[in-house]
């Protein structure tokens, strides 16, 4: 009786599921995405039925892929038979060209990264509704379960499941192809991929509430995927590097997060010794690479702001004039009221709290921030600094009525208590 010495790498199944779906979909064609997904689930269940007894095989990845491959071929034979029967009874079955089984059996396979990127481009295909791309990428490429995606999105499981079904139907209807887009399509398709990864990261990063564990995983998956995009010769670009830099610099602060991130003022209260210096260094290197192009994207500007914070030894010694300048450009580019609010806070570091309050009053489309707790929270901080504690208290109380999560409430309550 041999000892069970082999244990599994963390998230091996999740990672492996994404790679196997990618590899099988490339071999079978995107029409058979469902076959690939089902075959992979079959393989994971087979492991669940066998490994508890036999122990983990010497090469778990190879074991899983072998089973998934066989199940895919089995399932295709069934599809083929079903298609044959339909045409036999004269219902005009769609033309069916089964992929050569040999493409599945070849030993020399292209690098895994190519498959993953191919599946990522498929998930972010224009045929898929924009709000479904992130969920689809997490499911297919990331190997996340429907329940995990729902927890990260704070959505009902049934809603996510429906969104995924619709997305896959759109892919089939749109005849979307697996793989890299043609050179002519690459630029817009790459923009769509980067935008989806940005949303994926924010889904994890903006941990206003919910399951922080799965949210960190989602943010980590976004970093992994944008790293692939930024490193691959076909997709490497200044925008991809800028997005990678942005994510790494933001993620460097994860260990110091106390929840309810999103308000610039929270940075003031973070223990900077907990920031992940390795992530900062990697982020700054990526930002260097991002400077190669002549197009400045929102990712460049946001990464630039994040870099200012990352290299500042303290809140007070931060290069605020530079941050204001970056926010000016970012506001001009995006017109976002949230960006305008953070710009106002940055201005208050340079010109004082009353200047900041005046800028907040003049934010264009300020009504878009109605109900946003971080607006009165920012005003409260600025009133406090200006010495008007009554106004500050009123604003903290307003923010408390709007707070979206327990950490946000705790932070605001503590600030209010500190005031009186």
């Amino acid at each position: 009786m041999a000892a069970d010495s082999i244990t599994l790498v963390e998230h091996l199944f999740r990672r492996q599921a994404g790679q196997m779906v990618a590899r099988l979909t490339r071999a079978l064609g995107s029409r058979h995405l469902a076959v690939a997904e089902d075959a992979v689930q079959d393989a994971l269940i087979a492991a669940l039925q066998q490994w508890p007894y036999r122990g983990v095989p010497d090469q778990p990845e190879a074991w899983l892929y072998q089973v998934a491959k066989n199940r895919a071929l089995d399932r295709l034979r069934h599809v083929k038979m079903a298609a044959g029967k339909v045409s036999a009874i004269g219902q005009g079955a769609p033309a069916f060209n089964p992929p050569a089984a040999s493409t599945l059996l070849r030993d020399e396979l292209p690098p895994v990264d190519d498959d993953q990127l191919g599946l990522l481009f498929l998930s972010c295909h224009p045929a898929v509704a924009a709000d479904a791309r992130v969920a689809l990428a997490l499911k297919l490429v990331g190997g996340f379960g429907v329940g995990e995606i729902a927890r990260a999105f704070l959505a009902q499981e049934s809603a996510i499941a429906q969104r995924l079904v619709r997305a896959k139907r759109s892919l089939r209807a749109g005849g979307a192809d697996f793989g890299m887009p043609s050179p002519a399509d690459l630029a817009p398709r790459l923009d769509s991929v980067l935008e989806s990864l940005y949303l994926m990261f924010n889904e994890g990063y903006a941990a206003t509430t919910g399951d922080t564990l799965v949210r960190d995983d989602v943010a980590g998956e976004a970093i992994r995927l944008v790293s692939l995009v930024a490193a691959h010769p076909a997709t490497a670009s200044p925008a991809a590097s800028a997005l990678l830099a942005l994510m790494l610099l933001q993620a460097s602060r994860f260990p110091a997060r106390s929840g309810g991130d999103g308000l610039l003022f929270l940075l003031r209260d973070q223990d900077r010794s907990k920031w992940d210096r390795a992530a900062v260094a990697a982020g700054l290197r990526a930002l260097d690479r991002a400077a190669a192009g002549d197009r400045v994207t929102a990712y460049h500007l946001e990464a630039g702001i994040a870099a200012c914070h990352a290299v500042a030894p303290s809140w007070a010694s931060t290069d605020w004039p530079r941050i204001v300048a970056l926010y000016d450009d970012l506001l001009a580019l995006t017109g976002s009221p949230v960006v305008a609010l953070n710009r106002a806070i940055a201005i208050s570091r340079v010109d004082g709290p009353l200047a900041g309050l005046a800028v907040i009053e003049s934010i264009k489309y300020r009504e878009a921030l109605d109900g946003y707790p971080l607006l009165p929270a920012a005003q409260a901080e600025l009133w406090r600094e200006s010495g008007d504690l009554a106004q500050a208290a009123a604003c903290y109380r307003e923010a408390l009525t709007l707070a979206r999560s327990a950490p946000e409430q705790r932070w605001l309550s503590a600030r209010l208590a500190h005031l009186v």
Partner: protein
Amino acid sequence: MPRFIMLLHDSGTFPPDLSPDQIQAIIERYVAWKQKVQANGRAVDGHKLADGTGRVLRGAVGHPKVIDGPYAEAREVIGGLFIVEAAHFEEVVELSRDCPHLDFGTIEIREVEPT
């Protein structure tokens, strides 16, 4: 050392929507349990029984009745078994108390008569 067989009964099915992460977590619980038992100096060997019903033969030698079974209609079947070496029966019962299989089915322990 006395040998025992742990027969692991279960329904043979899992929730259809287990995520890869959840599947791995379940496997890891079994691996951890076996490692813990082995770390205590008790060897464990496992065997998975193939899925699907078996056959039961009953009747006269030469022409028995052969039916699917034995538990085709039962809620739980034996999915697999562990063979454990331990000092005595009670020790195996103790070892089994935190066996993750209890979350999925039942455990039946039998001692193998020494030869």
